[in-house]
């Protein structure tokens, strides 16, 4: 495989309603940002680019099949090769990885990955219904199809297994909303308190409205290229581009119906799922005791797909101690609970310790006053952008939005792009992006690094 560089990215403003543009024009907004960033006009970029990958989740929201080719056409990318990818909430992350594959394999030197969703064409309750159609329509949807309900069942199990509390969930919401306060692309820029999270309307017990991401209209795009592609781009734009390399990708899956998820033994967990930082005697003893208490893996409290995606990506990027070797993570926090579950899947802490990790301070940004009593210093800020909870979740764009923010973090250009340097992670050298589909069916993890 060849080295793949992530050279530029663009994001449209995410908003509850973007009636001012139809979806291909939203993608154009993100694409034009890239052109501005590179200092290049479209005809020149078109001359250089080898192809694209399009990302959007639902044909229902747009009531438009073949929406990918409409965006391709509107961007002026025809007749270059392209295809659409779809994998629920992980669609954007899958798109990023398909672009990576196109470049790494030698098929393309320069690939544009773009994604979008325009969810405002229907009311929120109908949008919930469309999204719920991503669950099994024979057995899950008819019982009360509602993804917030599905995730809420997962969190009640997490609470029962590990004693996770609603205050710990609320810490994630406070962190991500306050981070987004400094992100002009975010949909919800709020300074929030624990009480405000808990006092907001209950949606699916114990998740309140402020524990849950919102529906959005938006688009995002990323340019990936090979070393040869980088040379071509640099010659065309007349400047040296920062070397952000995609050093590893990983992807995992799990049973569509969470009811079907296995309840594995301790031995199988260590055979198939454990991370390098869980191989020491202390970790083995911890898990042995957990199993003795009745813990089984992954059950419905843990996302095995997220663990397998992390395991593969870490192996490819030679990461053995994720908390200390990754400088920041943009992860899929459609729910505060799923951020806590993902801490564990990604090995930032052991399974069962996610709640305590959420309140430790380790995942917070340095230099921001959250109004919380946090015992530990930040180590690996999680969702410095504000994540899905605050930025919004225009599904097909979300995983690519994470990539854009990661590129800017590693380039050290957050201050430039946000007009505010507060969210720049100091000395960011390596970041991870994590994209997740309904109840953890598909999960992608990609590692980006600033090449030394």
């Amino acid at each position: 495989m060849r080295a793949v560089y992530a050279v530029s990215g663009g994001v449209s403003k995410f908003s509850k309603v973007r009636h001012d543009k139809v979806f291909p024009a939203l993608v154009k907004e993100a694409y034009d940002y890239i052109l501005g960033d590179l200092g290049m006009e479209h005809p020149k970029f078109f001359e250089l680019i080898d192809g694209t990958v399009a990302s959007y989740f639902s044909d229902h929201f747009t009531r438009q099949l073949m929406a990918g080719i409409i965006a391709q056409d509107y961007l002026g990318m025809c007749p270059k090769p392209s295809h659409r990818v779809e994998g629920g909430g992980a669609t954007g992350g899958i798109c990023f990885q398909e672009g990576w594959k196109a470049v790494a394999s030698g098929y393309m030197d320069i690939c544009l990955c773009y994604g979008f969703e325009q969810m405002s064409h229907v009311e929120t309750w109908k949008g919930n219904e469309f999204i719920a159609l991503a669950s099994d329509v024979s057995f899950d949807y008819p019982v009360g199809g509602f993804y917030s309900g599905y995730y809420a069942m997962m969190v009640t199990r997490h609470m029962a297994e590990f004693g996770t509390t609603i205050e710990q969930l609320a810490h994630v919401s406070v962190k991500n909303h306050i981070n987004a306060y400094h992100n002009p692309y975010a949909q919800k820029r709020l300074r929030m308190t624990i009480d405000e999270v808990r006092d907001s309307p209950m949606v699916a017990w114990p998740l309140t409205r402020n524990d849950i991401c919102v529906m959005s209209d938006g688009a995002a795009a990323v340019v990936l290229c090979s070393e040869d592609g980088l040379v071509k781009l640099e010659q065309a734009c007349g400047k040296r581009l920062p070397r952000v390399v995609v050093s590893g990708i990983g992807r995992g899956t799990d049973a569509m119906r969470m009811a079907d998820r296995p309840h594995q033994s301790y031995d199988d967990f260590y055979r198939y799922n454990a991370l390098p930082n869980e191989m020491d005697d202390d970790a083995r003893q911890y898990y042995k005791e957990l199993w003795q208490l009745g813990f089984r893996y992954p059950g419905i409290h843990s996302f095995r797909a997220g663990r397998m995606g992390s395991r593969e990506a870490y192996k490819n990027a030679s990461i053995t101690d994720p908390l200390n070797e990754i400088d920041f993570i943009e992860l899929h926090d459609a729910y505060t609970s799923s951020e806590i579950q993902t801490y564990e899947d990604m090995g930032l802490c052991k399974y069962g310790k996610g709640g305590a990790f959420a309140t430790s301070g380790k995942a917070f940004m340095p230099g921001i006053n959250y109004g919380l009593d946090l015992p530990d210093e930040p180590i690996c800020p999680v969702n410095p952008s504000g994540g899905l909870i605050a930025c919004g979740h225009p599904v097909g764009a979300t995983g690519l939005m994470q990539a854009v923010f990661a590129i800017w973090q590693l380039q050290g250009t957050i201050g430039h792009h946000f007009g505010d340097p507060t969210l720049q992670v100091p000395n960011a050298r390596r970041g991870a992006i994590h994209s997740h589909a309904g109840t953890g069916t598909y999960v992608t993890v990609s590692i980006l690094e600033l090449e030394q």
Partner: protein
Amino acid sequence: MSEKKISPIIDENLEGTTVFNIPFPTGNDLSSLKKMSPIVIRFPYSIEYNYSYGQDSPFFAALSNKRFIVSREPQSGYTYATSRGHDMYSGRETDWVEIEPRGHIHAFTVCHFGSEAFLPECPFILIQVKFKECDTLFMGRLLGVDPEKASIDWIGKEVKGRYRRNSKLQPTDIYFNLVE
């Protein structure tokens, strides 16, 4: 012989979105159109499906007869509480096995909001049930419990299935009550 007259004028009607006047510049200067507010129209969209339950059909036939069947791998005995035609480990076809729908709450939530189709039923309680005969779970509704009194203590409580009197051929033909 006279020729049939074919009208070149489209028929006008008042169905769907009908507009009588949209403001538009009267002169040749169209530059103000770039500042025009977007036009948003509303229209219905509905579909009738002929949906097949395929190999899972016996499960729904069982529910309509007030019986509960699960899927068991014939050699390993691994049993799915939710119908599954083939085992995920061996790839072998599963067998139908009847069990008494009595188990324990493994997880739950109370939905105070939801998809459009279920809004009239809010708040409703979703549970994942663990049957002792099965290795996996079954999702259903819990009734007879006050949804405003949600508590993590509900997890572990014993439940038993109850059938709708008039089958709708949906998984909700069975729902659950607490065993007091």
